[in-house]
C-alpha cells in the first residue's frame, strides 16, 4: 500500500511545520501520529462527536473528516497551543472552576469550540451558546457546566469591554 506522499507545510500552534503525508491521511492522524498532539481525540471518525475538533484559519472543524493535505498553507490550532508555559486561557480555567470536566475525553474538542466562540467577541444567549457547542458530544456532564463555563467567560469578556 505504498503511496506517494505529499508535502504539507502549515502552521500548527504557531510553529511552522513541514510533513510528508499520505493523501488518505486525515488531519487527525497527522496531528496525533506525526506531531504528537494527542489532545486531538478520535471518537467516531465521521464528524459526529466533535472530540477531534481543531481550529483551522479561525474556524472549528472535525479533523477526522479533513484530509491532512488540506492543511497546506493553513493555520491550525489544537488544545496544546492554548496554554503558555503553564498559564491557562480563561476558558481552560473556567472549565476547571465550573466543573465542566469529567472523563476529559471530549474536553479538548469543547475547549476548541468555546475558544473560537469567545474570540468572536459576541455576547450570546445561553440557547445560542448551546447551538454553537452542539457539534461536540459529551456523555458525562449533560453539558450544563460546559455551557456555564462558556457563559461565564463570555460575560467576563463583555464586562471588560
Amino acid at each position, binding site marked *: 500500500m505504498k503511496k506517494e506522499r*505529499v508535502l504539507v507545510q502549515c502552521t500548527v500552534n504557531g510553529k511552522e511545520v513541514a510533513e510528508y503525508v*499520505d*493523501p*488518505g*491521511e*486525515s488531519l487527525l*492522524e497527522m496531528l496525533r501520529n506525526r506531531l504528537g498532539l494527542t489532545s486531538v481525540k478520535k471518537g467516531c*471518525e*465521521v*464528524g*459526529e462527536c*466533535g472530540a477531534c*475538533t481543531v481550529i483551522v484559519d479561525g*474556524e*472549528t*472543524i*472535525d479533523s477526522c*473528516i*479533513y*484530509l491532512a*493535505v*488540506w492543511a497546506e498553507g493553513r493555520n491550525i490550532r489544537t488544545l496544546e497551543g492554548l496554554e503558555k508555559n503553564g498559564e491557562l486561557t480563561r476558558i481552560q480555567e473556567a472549565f476547571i472552576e465550573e466543573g465542566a470536566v469529567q472523563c476529559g475525553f471530549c474536553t479538548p474538542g469543547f475547549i476548541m*469550540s468555546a475558544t473560537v466562540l469567545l474570540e468572536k467577541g459576541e455576547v450570546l444567549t445561553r440557547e445560542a451558546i448551546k*447551538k*454553537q457547542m*452542539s*457539534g*461536540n*458530544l459529551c456523555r458525562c456532564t449533560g453539558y450544563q457546566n460546559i455551557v456555564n463555563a462558556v457563559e461565564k467567560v463570555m460575560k467576563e469578556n463583555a464586562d471588560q469591554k
Partner: protein
Amino acid sequence: MYDIENYYNAETIKEAVTLLKEHPEARIISGGSDVLIKIREGKLAGTSLVCIRDIKELKGIIKMDSGDIYIGAGTTFSHITSDPVIQENIPVLGEAVDQVGGPQIRNIGTIGGNICNGAVSADSAPALFSLNAMIRTADGSGGRTVPIHDFYLGPGKVDVKPGELVTHILIPEKEYTGYHGHYIKYSMRRAMDIATLGCCVVSRINPSANILEDIRITFGVAAPVPLRCVKTEEALKGSPVNEKLYQAIEDKVREEIHPRDSWRASREFRLQIGGEIARRALERTVELAAGGERK
C-alpha cells in the same frame, strides 16, 4: 486513513474539468463531509479524488447587477448563513443551511456538495427548490444551466455528466423579490441530525388584499427526491389568508407528498408531520410578510 487510490488537486475550474476528463473514474471532493464518510464506509473505498477546495472561483456570494444572486458551489454553509447578501435577500436559505449538522460540519460542508450528493434530506434543497434556483455547470465547453427541479434525477443521482462540475447556483431576482420564506427541519434532535422531514414555504402575500398571490412548497424526505407540491400550490394561489387556507395546505400537502415507511419513521407519521410543518411554515411566512422579525 482513508483508502484513496489517487488524489488530484485542482486550483482552477479549468484544471478541475481537465482532471475530471483525464480521470473519469475520479470523484469530486469539496468539503469532504459526505465523500470521506462514504470512503470510510467502504462504499467509495479505493476511489480516486479530484479536489476542488482550492478553487477560489467557486467560493463566495454576489448580488449581481441583474439582481440575481450568485452562490459559489464551494461556499460553506457557515459562510452562506453569515453572508449579508443572503441575510438581506434570501434569509431562508441561510437559516436552512444553519440547521445542517453542527458548527464544525457547517464550516466545511458546501452548498454545491450538499446538492451534488443527491440526498433527499439535504437541508439546502427545499429552499433552493422553493426559490427556483438554477444550477450552473462547467465542462470546458460552455457548461449548462439546469433548473434545480430538473437537477435531481433520483435518490443519490443528480444531473452532473462525466467531466462536468457544478460551479455556482443562481437565484433569479424575480424569484425572491417580494417573497418571504421559512424552512422547518423536522428531526429527532435539534442539532447533529438529518431531517426526518423538511419543508420550505416561500410565499408572496398581497397584504392590502390579504391574498396569497404565490406560493412554493418544497419537501425534503417526502419522496425519492425533493418534492415541489405543485398541485397544492395551484390550489392555494389566490386564496385569502385565513384559517381555511392553513387547513387547506395541511390537507392538500398530505395528499400530495408520498413519504415511505422506513425504520427511521413511518409513512403515517411523516404524513401527519408533513401537513403540520407545511401549515406552520406558511403561517410563519405570513407573519414575516406582515413585518414579523426573523429570529
